């Protein structure tokens, strides 16, 4: 192994005896909390034994380690690997055995390890574990251990000591664990996080407790209860770290400072505790609920210097926010087909979005979006082929010109003249189909629907044989005025009659923002009563100007 200049990295080491303690503490931590892990178990088979299986696996590993008389880390790690292999139980037990096997490979020949070697061992465990599966399922212990190893490497390379390195591993693993329900739907349905991942983090927390040095127990005589508050507080660290949101750090100067005593007193007040130094100068690091109490306590010993208090809750949120942004950027991997549609009315926008439109522009009769507006929306969609649904005859032309503004994407305008046509086209959109299939499917859908609209006249006019007065309710079929009148319901009914709705299979109605639900219900009732075999769908479209938009198929 190539050693980098020592000064940059922490020179604290973990020796073989400590490694053994780590394994023991991991067993202890899991023993205490295995039921909690069992309760989470829904994947891959909901049999509620993940915690128990992992516990039996790591216990077998620890027993093997106890038989080793040597003090080399590599000897102990090899025994742990062999023990976990033989004792592997269940899916997560097998994965755990592979993680430990990879770690053993990584520390081969080493008497003791520093923080970087520890982090590398974790990474090697993850590499080994990933090799033994054809199709790794993300959102499991694999994901959690991978993120934990990443955190460890990061911290170790920043000069973190072994405890800090493991703390960071747990913190990062914890974040990944919280996200497992987003990756694996079965977890979300059950409202749990991944059991194996949780078990792994509990083991790591045990390791931290062991390295903090206050735990010593024999694997054969595990006490029924956690030995004392300090160990389990540290063991719970990070898993519940938001319980202690303030990261508090300071230097304490005094005379005859008793490090052991300070550590013991502070242990009850938080987690991730670190008390190091000499009788004249001590550095304290703790995550706590109340930094004031920590400082008050320390004042009894001497003077405080370089006090730093951070609210980790706020830090976490900021980081979560950053990650969300990167995630959103990451999502923008170009897909094959994308859809941009122009429409109006909250309800209709929602329907289009639900049907898979990537970008919905609002616009329509009175406010047509420009070619540039549409091109802007097209740019926001990361797809090779973009289908534009203008949904209005006045917008088709603007849409056709978009191609000239866009160089890196193929634009296909589906000349939909109405909302109804747009929806019919969308229903024939196949995200995994070819360009030809989509164009053909969507275009042929246009002719299968009849569109009707009910709106009002803004001024007196004459159209064909109709005398129209300002304020009249107008019925349009395929954009042509066919009826007028003063009563909304009767105009709506007449418009539908002109659309030959009685011969259709399905009538869809979007009522606009100026129509009361009760009025729409009245229309629906009439449709159902006069022709019960026709299916009626009614949606709150929320569109302006048009009282009703109808489509008949």
């Amino acid at each position: 192994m190539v050693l980098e200049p020592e000064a940059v990295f922490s020179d604290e080491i973990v020796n073989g005896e400590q490694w053994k303690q780590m394994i023991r503490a991991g067993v202890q931590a899991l023993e205490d909390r295995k039921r909690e892990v069992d309760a989470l178990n829904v994947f891959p088979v909901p049999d509620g034994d993940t915690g128990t299986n992992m516990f039996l696996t790591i216990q077998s590993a620890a027993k093997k380690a106890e038989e080793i008389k040597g003090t080399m880390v590599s000897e102990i790690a090899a025994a742990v690997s062999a023990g976990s292999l033989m004792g592997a139980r269940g899916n997560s037990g097998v994965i755990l055995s592979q993680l430990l096997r990879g770690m053993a490979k990584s520390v081969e020949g080493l008497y003791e390890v520093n923080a970087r070697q520890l982090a590398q061992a974790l990474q090697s465990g993850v590499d080994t574990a990933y090799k033994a599966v054809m199709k790794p399922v993300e959102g499991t212990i694999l994901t959690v251990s991978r993120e934990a190893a990443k955190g460890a490497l990061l911290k170790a390379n920043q000069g973190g000591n072994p405890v800090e390195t493991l703390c960071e591993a747990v913190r990062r693993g914890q974040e990944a664990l919280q996200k497992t329900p987003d990756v694996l739907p079965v977890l979300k349905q059950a409202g749990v996080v991944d059991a194996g991942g949780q078990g792994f983090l509990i083991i790591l927390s045990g390791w931290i407790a062991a390295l903090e040095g206050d735990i010593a127990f024999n694997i054969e005589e595990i006490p029924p209860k956690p030995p004392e508050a300090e160990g389990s507080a540290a063991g719970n660290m990070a898993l519940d770290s938001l319980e202690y949101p303030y990261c508090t750090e300071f230097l304490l100067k005094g005379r005859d400072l008793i490090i052991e005593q300070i550590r013991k007193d502070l242990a009850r007040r938080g987690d991730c505790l670190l008390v190091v130094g000499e009788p004249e100068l001590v550095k304290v690091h703790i995550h706590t609920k109340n930094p004031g109490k920590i400082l008050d306590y320390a004042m009894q010993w001497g003077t405080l210097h370089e006090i730093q208090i951070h609210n980790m809750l706020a830090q976490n949120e900021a980081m979560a926010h950053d990650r969300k942004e990167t995630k959103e950027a990451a999502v923008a991997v170009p897909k094959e087909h994308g859809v941009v549609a122009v429409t109006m009315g909250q309800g209709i926008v929602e329907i289009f979005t639900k049907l898979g439109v990537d970008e919905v522009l609002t616009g329509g009769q009175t406010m047509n979006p420009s070619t540039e507006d549409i091109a802007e929306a097209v740019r926001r969609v990361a797809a090779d082929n973009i289908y534009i649904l203008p949904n209005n005859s006045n917008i088709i032309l603007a849409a056709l010109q978009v191609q000239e503004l866009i160089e890196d994407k193929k634009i296909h305008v589906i000349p939909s003249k109405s909302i109804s046509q747009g929806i019919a086209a969308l229903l024939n959109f196949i995200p995994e189909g070819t360009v030809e299939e989509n164009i053909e499917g969507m275009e042929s859908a246009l002719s299968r629907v009849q569109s009707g609209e009910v709106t009002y006249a803004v001024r007196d006019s004459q159209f064909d044989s109709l005398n129209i007065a300002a304020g009249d309710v107008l019925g349009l079929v395929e954009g042509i005025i066919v009826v007028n009148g003063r009563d909304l319901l009767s105009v709506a009914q007449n418009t539908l009659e002109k659309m030959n709705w009685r011969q259709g299979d399905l009538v869809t109605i979007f009522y606009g923002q100026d129509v009361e639900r009760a009025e729409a219900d009245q229309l629906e009732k009439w449709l159902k009563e006069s022709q019960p075999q026709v299916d009626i769908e009614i949606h709150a479209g929320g569109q302006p100007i048009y009282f009703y938009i109808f489509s008949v198929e």
Partner: protein
Amino acid sequence: MGKEISNEYGSVDISEGVIATIAGAAAIECYGLVGMSSRKSTDKVVELLGRENLSRGVVVAIQENEVTIDLYIIVGYGMKISEVAMNVMERVRYTVENLTGFSVNKVNINVESVRVLE
């Protein structure tokens, strides 16, 4: 052939091929299983055609309404084979039963080889 569920509204037929694909897809997500071992000549034809063959190494038999699944698997070296096999068995049974609604009579695991992963 396949298996049928019927009620007063009609019937649902699920072929052996469908069950084999579900079983194969569930199996390859199992930890420790690093490959499937081809058993049928049709597997090779499908692979020659360059298609992803999820039912490779899966043989489904339906007799007198009982589903039996035989899996021919390759396990990674350094893993407890019995545990991996148990996991595959459990997972395949659970997934097939869950998705098809049939009860699976037997899942037989044949470990055809062990592969050393560098």
